[in-house]
């Protein structure tokens, strides 16, 4: 795909930069310019603020893909899931580092950073989020955001998601 088209989404694809409606508090990923759900639809224009997801969530549904999307041929069969994040938004992403037969609805997962696809052997490499099982991992220490996306509010990476 177009380099610019992918590149401009890197704050989202690398760092899970979403947005939050300051009128009703709902969190969205990818970020939205207007709140689709709250009663303040019109008033929310210009009042959506950047919000970074932690990358923690659980599998809401999943499939094991045998006929792959373009660029995923080397990973067949791969698990694709709808992941409900702890902040609310549901994301579509691969679940890696787990045998397909061990994936289940409710599995706790955590965002990980992987190659999404390559533009052939000579082209650019696109990176972004996938999910890995988190159940056997220690919990995130309280008050400590993920290094991945954990730039404090107002920092450069936060603003980049706006």
């Amino acid at each position, binding site marked *: 795909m177009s380099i610019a*088209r992918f590149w401009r989404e890197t704050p989202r694809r690398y760092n899970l930069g979403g947005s939050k409606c300051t009128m009703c508090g709902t969190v969205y990923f990818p970020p939205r310019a207007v709140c689709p759900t709250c009663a303040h639809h019109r008033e929310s224009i210009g009042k959506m603020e950047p919000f970074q997801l932690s990358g923690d969530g659980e599998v809401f549904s999943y*499939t094991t893909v045998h006929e792959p999307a373009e660029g995923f041929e080397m990973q067949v069969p791969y698990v694709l899931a709808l992941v409900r994040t702890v902040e609310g938004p549901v994301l579509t992403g691969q679940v890696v580092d787990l045998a397909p037969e061990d994936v289940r609805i409710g599995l706790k997962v955590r965002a990980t950073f992987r190659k*999404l696809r390559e533009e052939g052997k000579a082209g650019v490499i696109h990176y972004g989020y996938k999910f890995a099982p988190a159940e056997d991992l220690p919990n995130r220490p309280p008050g400590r955001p993920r290094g991945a996306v954990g730039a404090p509010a107002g920092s450069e990476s936060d603003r980049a998601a706006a």
Partner: protein
Amino acid sequence: MRDVAVLGVGMTKFGELWDRSFREIGIEAGLQALVDAKLSSGDLGALYLGNMASGSLIDQEHIGPLILDYAGLGARHLPAVRVEGGGASGSLALHQGYLAVASGLYDFVVVGGAEKLTDVPDATGNQITSSAADHEWEVVFGGTLPALWAMIARRHMHQYGTTREQLARVAVHAHEMGSKNPNAHYRNKVTLEQVIGAGPVAEPLGVFDCAPLSDGAAAVVLGPMELAHKYSERPVRIAASAVACDTMAVQHRRDVTTLDSTVLAARRAFEQAKRAPADVQVAEINDAYTISALLALEDLGFSEKGHAGPDFEAGRFARGGEVAVNMSGGLKAQGRPFGAVGVAQVVELVRQLRGEAKDRQVANPTLALAHDVGGTGATSVVTLLERAS
């Protein structure tokens, strides 16, 4: 707004039409419909053409005038408009044609749908058609149309106890009906064991849970109801044409196991026609994936939420059941030429309402429903067709 009638129908065979080009199949369907309507081309006001991806599939955009030209109507300088809504392109075009006639702007229009999918390799065809899903937030991450529908299926099974066998029944039924349809892409019957034992595409969906990539075209001629009897012995009235949209990506749906677009399109259509699901005797619904059919039956109001699987197993949607569903063989067996699907649904239902469906004929239907879906449900179109008295 005035009442609109379907005056003529036509369609090509669906399937692998290796020796026929996009323009050839488009014209064949359109001319069939014109002849069926006993209409002179001089009566036509406009052409609406449903097509999803001609640019990617055959390197040809701007296909409205192309079809008009090769249909021999170039010199008449009619307006020709292409309409795109993923897999629902055909019925969206029908909606536009319906509005044009209902408004009084044109008296007679041709609505066509055409797609040529076998001019690219299967993998390319799958990649191109997956662009009906959200490319940036689903496809980039490994999503395909069957994979996204498979996640809907898995959730439906989890929430409602829908079984693998119930999904498979949808395919068995489709092939059973396809065997009676000379235009169908697949005319072979399949068993439950074959469906369940087929190779996986995106679990729990296997090869037989997924409609094929087909070539094909279909067309209808629409005109005002008040003039219908002049052009057709058995005109069919469009009792309602309703469209509803939803979030592009499955991940953003209110409920992953419900197509709100279908719920809303159906509600609007039944309100417009002042009818209810129980009044429908025959329906063509989206069964692009076996799970799509179960969702449709629930979201259209034919089954309670979560009950479509058992209801299907119980034979409620067989020929002779409460609602005879997909007598054409559906997308699964009749075929899935994306932009042609919605128009072909109407072709089948008009034939049913006229009593011309031969081996597939349902006994004396009066109200029929067509249900077309784009992508994973971002667009749904519901059309109600009524036998004109």
